[in-house]
Each structure stands twice: as C-alpha cells, then as structure tokens.
C-alpha cells in the first residue's frame, strides 16, 4: 500500500518504525500524550481502559437488547417510553452521553430519525461511539431539511402518508429509536430478536428487516 503512495497521506514527518511517515496529526497526538504523561497529568493505563471500554464493551448490542426486550415485554416497553433513562438503567446501561434518555417509537404512521446538527451527540451507553457518517457534514446538514432524501440513500423509501419526525439533539437528552418489530418474528426469543436489530434502525436510518432478509444481507 505504501509503495503505491510513496508520499504518504500526511504532511511529511519523521520516520515511523514500520517505514511509513507519520502524518501531522499522528505526530501531534503522540507528542501530546508524551507531554501530558511526562507531566504526570495522564495515566496511560487509564487511556487504555477508556479505549477498551468503547472498543469492546459498549456498543449497539446494548441498544439491541433494550429494543428486543421492549418487543417481548409490554410492561417494559411501557416503562421505556415513560422514563427511558430508568428503564435502560435497569438493564445496566448508564452513564456518559446517556444520562438523560428518550425513546421514540416507530409505528406504521410515524418514522423517527435522530441527528445532532451542531456536533455529534449520540447515546453512547446504548449505541457506543457514533459512526463516521453520523458525524459527517452531509448527514448533519441534510437530516433536518431533507430527511426523506437521506433515508432514500439508506435504501428506505417512506410513503408520503408516513410522518417523519426528525430529532435534533441540541441539548443533553439522548435519543434512541424503538423500531417496529418486523413480520415473521413471532415466537423468536429475545436473544434471537436482538440479533436482528441494527445500529441504523436505532438511529432511524433503517428498519429492522425480517429474519430471511436479515440473513441474506449479512451474507452480503
């Protein structure tokens, strides 16, 4: 790869142990971490722990378990819609960027879509860290003015009679979409249901596909 791009992608920089030059941003981060460590201001072990948390432990599987439970347990669903923070905390998903949760229910007549036009607010405890597209200028600019066009790009064409509700996360409330349970899932266990539920369905850029189609898409 580096043979085809002998100039590298950065702005020059010093030699990297593996041969490719370090980009400007790589150098800045390395220098910053060294400087802060040297001053005793950060503990490298704490950095590793923070990274490990969001890379391995927190992610959209958490949200999928919340949604699956809401599909099989009407009492839980009632509590989830009434006080999402408490209901989700009851499953152990609490904390940073999810201190105050709101759950939005999709129905055959209402489709909810979540965005943060001003930065990239996202419900970390249930969805993990946001994907690049969620943080990108195209999504942040267009979700509010052209939600149906954005959904079309995600392969979701909504009938005109469906009401689209876009939720701009401008404050400290964090939104999770409760997608519709697809047909053909009767009798499936909570765990089997959770496996069908995608991150995008909980942001509102997709629907949850029936099992046969979900399997096809997973195979690619």
């Amino acid at each position: 790869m580096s043979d085809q791009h002998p100039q590298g992608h950065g702005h020059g920089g010093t030699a990297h142990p593996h041969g490719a030059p370090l980009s400007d941003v790589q150098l800045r981060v390395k220098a910053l971490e060294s400087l802060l460590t040297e001053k005793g201001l950060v503990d490298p072990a704490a950095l590793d722990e923070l990274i490990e948390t969001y890379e391995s432990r927190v992610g959209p599987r958490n949200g999928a378990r919340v949604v699956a439970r809401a599909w099989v347990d009407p009492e839980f669903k009632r509590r989830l819609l009434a006080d999402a923070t408490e209901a989700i905390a009851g499953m152990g998903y609490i904390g940073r960027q999810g201190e105050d949760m709101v759950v939005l229910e999709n129905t055959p007549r209402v489709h909810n879509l979540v965005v943060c036009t001003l930065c990239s607010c996202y419900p970390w405890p249930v969805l993990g860290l946001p994907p690049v597209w969620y943080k990108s200028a195209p999504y942040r600019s267009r979700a509010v003015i052209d939600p149906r066009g954005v959904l079309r790009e995600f392969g979701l064409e909504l009938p005109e009679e469906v009401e689209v509700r876009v939720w701009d996360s401008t404050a400290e409330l964090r939104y999770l979409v409760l997608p519709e349970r697809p047909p053909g899932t009767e009798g499936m266990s909570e765990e089997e249901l959770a496996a069908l539920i995608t991150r995008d369905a909980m942001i509102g850029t997709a629907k949850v596909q029936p099992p046969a189609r979900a399997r096809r898409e997973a195979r690619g």
Partner: protein
Amino acid sequence: MNGVHDLGGMHGFGPVEREADEPVFHAEWERRAFALTLAMGAWGRWSLDMARHSRERMPPHEYLAAGYYERWLWGLETLLVEHGFLSREELDRRAERPRTARPIEPGALRAADVPRLLGNRRAARLDDPVAPRFRAGDRVVARNLHPAGHTRLPRYVRGRQGVVDRDHGVFIFPDTHAAGLGRKPQHVYSVRFAARELWGPEASPRDRVYVDLWDDYLDPA
C-alpha cells in the same frame, strides 16, 4: 456563534457516505485523541459546554476539512493551553518525547476510576426549583439571537414558530456555562416545528423537526 459547525439545512456536502463493517476507531491516533480528551476532561477544569465551544472555534475551513477526532484534538489543545496545563510553545515543539517515570499527579484519572467516570449518571440536569415558562402545547417562537459565544440554538430555527411538545426539566444553560458565567438553571423543552415552517412550501406537509431548546431561547408566539 454563527459557526460552520451549525450545519443544519446547509446544501452542497453531497450524499451520506457509509462504510460497511466500520471499526470504532480508524487509527491508533484516533483512539489516543479520544482517550486523552476524556482523561484530561476528568480533571474538571472545563465543562462539556466549554469543550464543545473549543471545537467550534476551529477556523471554518479547517473544521470542514478535519475529521471528527482532529476536531477533538484541536479543541483539547486549545483547552490545555487556555487552562494552563501546557504552553503553546510546548505544543508547537511537536517532537515525540520519551515517557519518563515522573509520578502521576493526584488529580489525574487512573484506570481504576474509569468505570466511575463513565458511569456517572448526572451531567447537565439540575434539581434547582425553577418554574417553567412554558407547558406542553404552548405556541412559542425561537428568538432571533446571534451570540458570538457558544449557543445551542441552531440558526435554522431562529425566528421560527413551533409548539412545545414536552418539558424535559431543568438543565444547565450552555451559553453562560461555556463562558464560565454560571449554570443559569432553566427548563429545556422539545419544541416541534413543522417542516414547512422551517423550510418552506417544498417541504412535506407531514414532517416535523423536534429541537431541544432552553427557556432563554424562546418567546411566546
């Protein structure tokens, strides 16, 4: 501030590009920039509002060219200098330094503290007994404000009429908090705007945009 970060409703950025099987981080420096931001934030010298404002102050052409964690890095460097942790000269040296065995300061985040830091359930919500100015169902208009500092009032709703959908309770007011001028506790509401009120007759007559807005951003309509 009327910054380029306030992207809602802008044209010209092209289609939303997605990546299949996207990893949480795309490079080691992204991991480190993310973790450094959280670890230095744990010192408690700045608020989340100040952190957001630090990223918003990135020059517009750089902001648009930068990736998400480059903005975080820029914001973190800015905050570290402004709060006296580092000097600009130290940052500009940019040389990779060997790690030394200097003891970790008592205020630094330790690995054992991480679960408590991330599990903290209180952030911006307050218990102050502040009366709400509005109730669900009230018609409101977003004020036409253009503060030069941090604000969470997006340009696309300013001067537009909506309806209070629900009262979320009392929260820190970001405009004052980001400037170090206090929490100014007040209610935040989800305000429902008709897409046509925001975007004109081309928009769908059914669609709505819900925006979380503080009392100080609203007037009765």
